[in-house]
């Protein structure tokens, strides 16, 4: 299966300080791919650069160096006009549902914006049935979510509405950036199951999160990101079952489990500054940045 989305040696460097004299490397030489019909989770803590990668893929942030290929075409240099075509197939949903909607307008305006840009000549009736089909695909009741303001809907409904919006297009690839971290525990899992349903429809999904349990639940492959670089990658069962990089191990050791108490080590997290080595294969399709 050829890759739907491919990142090759992507780097993002910010210029900070007065007159932009200092450099801050947010993402360093990251390469991976996402195939159709699979969920890849990108796991990292704050400051790891995971959201930056999501934004680069969606071209909301320019790439400093490297290429991003969607179905073979390099989108990292696309102009505004060609980007519109790209967005027909690749969309994103972000962390804060209340920040994703302009509070001045009604929530379903996000659907209207899609119509204006991509379906200007479709008549009302056809559009209405298209919306209803989309809403049904995400288990939303049109009567409950249309014509309402964002503050009148719950976080879960708002996130689903964003997925419905993406489904109005010919969606093939979705970037889900911490989409459930601001939702309540009882509604989280339903939105996450939605990603599973989308995967079954053939979508490729990049699931960005800091929560290992969620990544483990939904994804087929996992990448562990630390300070802008991938430290381990491979099938989820491999990375979680047989973690090779010390950072991955420390992350897994720190996760609070529900039926098992933490061990008794008193370390305050993974601090060691190891010399970055290259990613080497440690198993079939399993790479880790460890010494050979």
């Amino acid at each position, binding site marked *: 299966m050829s890759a739907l989305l491919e990142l090759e040696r992507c780097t993002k460097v910010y210029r900070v300080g007065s007159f932009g004299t200092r450099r801050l490397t947010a993402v360093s030489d990251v390469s991976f791919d996402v195939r159709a019909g699979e969920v890849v989770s990108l796991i990292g*803590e*704050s400051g790891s650069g995971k959201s930056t990668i999501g934004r680069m893929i969606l071209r909301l942030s320019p790439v400093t160096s490297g290429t991003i290929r969607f179905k073979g075409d390099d989108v990292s240099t696309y102009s505004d006009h060609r980007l519109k075509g790209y967005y027909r197939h690749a969309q994103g949903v972000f962390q804060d549902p209340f920040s994703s909607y302009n509070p001045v307008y009604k929530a379903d305006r996000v659907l209207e914006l899609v119509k204006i840009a991509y379906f200007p000549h479709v008549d009302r009736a056809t559009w209405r049935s298209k919306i209803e089909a989309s809403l049904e695909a995400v288990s939303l009741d049109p009567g409950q979510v249309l014509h309402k303001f964002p503050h009148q809907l*719950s976080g*879960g409904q708002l996130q689903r509405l964003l997925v419905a919006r993406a489904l109005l297009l010919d969606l093939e690839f979705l970037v889900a950036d911490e989409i459930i971290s601001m939702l*309540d*525990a*009882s*509604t*989280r*899992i*339903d939105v*996450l*199951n939605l990603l*599973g349903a989308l995967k079954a429809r053939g979508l490729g999904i990049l699931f960005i999160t*800091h*929560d*290992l*349990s*969620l990544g*483990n*639940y*939904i994804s087929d492959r996992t990448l562990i990101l630390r300070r802008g670089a991938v430290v381990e990658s491979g099938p*989820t069962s491999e990375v*979680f079952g047989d973690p090779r990089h010390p950072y991955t191990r*420390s*992350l*897994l050791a*720190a*996760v*609070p*489990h*529900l*039926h098992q*108490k*933490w061990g008794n080590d*008193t370390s*305050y*997290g*993974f601090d060691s500054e190891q010399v970055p080595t290259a990613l080497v294969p440690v198993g079939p399709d399993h790479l880790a940045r460890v010494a050979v």
Partner: protein
Amino acid sequence: MSLDVSGLKMYYRTVRGDVRAVDDVTFSIADGEIMGVAGESGCGKSSLGNSLVYLAGRMKYVGGTVELDGAPLPIWDFEAMNQYRFSRVSVIPQYAMSALNPTRRVGRMLEELLKSRGFDYGSLQPELLRRLELVGLDAEVLRLYPIELSGGMKQRTVMVISTLLDPSLLIADEITSALDVSTQKAVAKMLVEFRDRGFVKSMAVITHDISILYQVADTILVMYGGQLAEKASAAEIIEAPRHPYTKLLISSLPEIGVRYETKKLHGIPGTPPALLDPPEGCRFRDRCPLASEACRRTPPFREVAAGHHVACWRVAA
């Protein structure tokens, strides 16, 4: 020490009426107990924690009693509470990391804080340094500005400051939410250590993350819609919950090892009730698969087994 809360009611005043955030809440925390308060957004857990220390803005005390070590705690009286705050009851607020004054060096801020309470910074400094070292912070931290500290460092600093005077009751409000998973573990374990060393007698740890509570709390209190649903030991809440809400909530939590293909989890359909005009009776009624006519009357929060309280008509004693 012990905390006894009985029939506590705290509402928020708004133009449209009263938001019944804490509605007739009764529970106790024993000496040395770490009680977790779990629930989703809008359940009133933060309001409950806040009300025991400081009635902010629009909160108003409506009724009920609070007793700390047998003596009543005058939570409705801001002035009277001054002598209890920080010394007997202390709080680590939500977003404690933003609670440090950005224009003051940490040490200077602490000095001013203690002075305002009538305590001498000099005499407390040795203990302060000892505790900072305990949580893995250098004495250097006192000379830094808050912006120079990382999230975890700020959280630990605030924890030390809040417990400096050895309060009887510590209320920790979502102190692990904004932290990375490794720092979360360190901070959560620190809470237990504070209790074990006697810096704090009892704690109420408020969070939406039940798995953290399982790791550090002795008991867990589950709140829903401004009312109490269940209270039991942490192990029982996770392994043998009795309230329908708790059961559904626990079963919706993904754990490492549980995968979508093999075991699809389910959430709870619907949303929590608006507390402005809450439904009468059990507030979980609309989402509960076991709801019946009897649920139109508010079920009492009673003990159905040793140390296990539940508010549900369908749970037999």
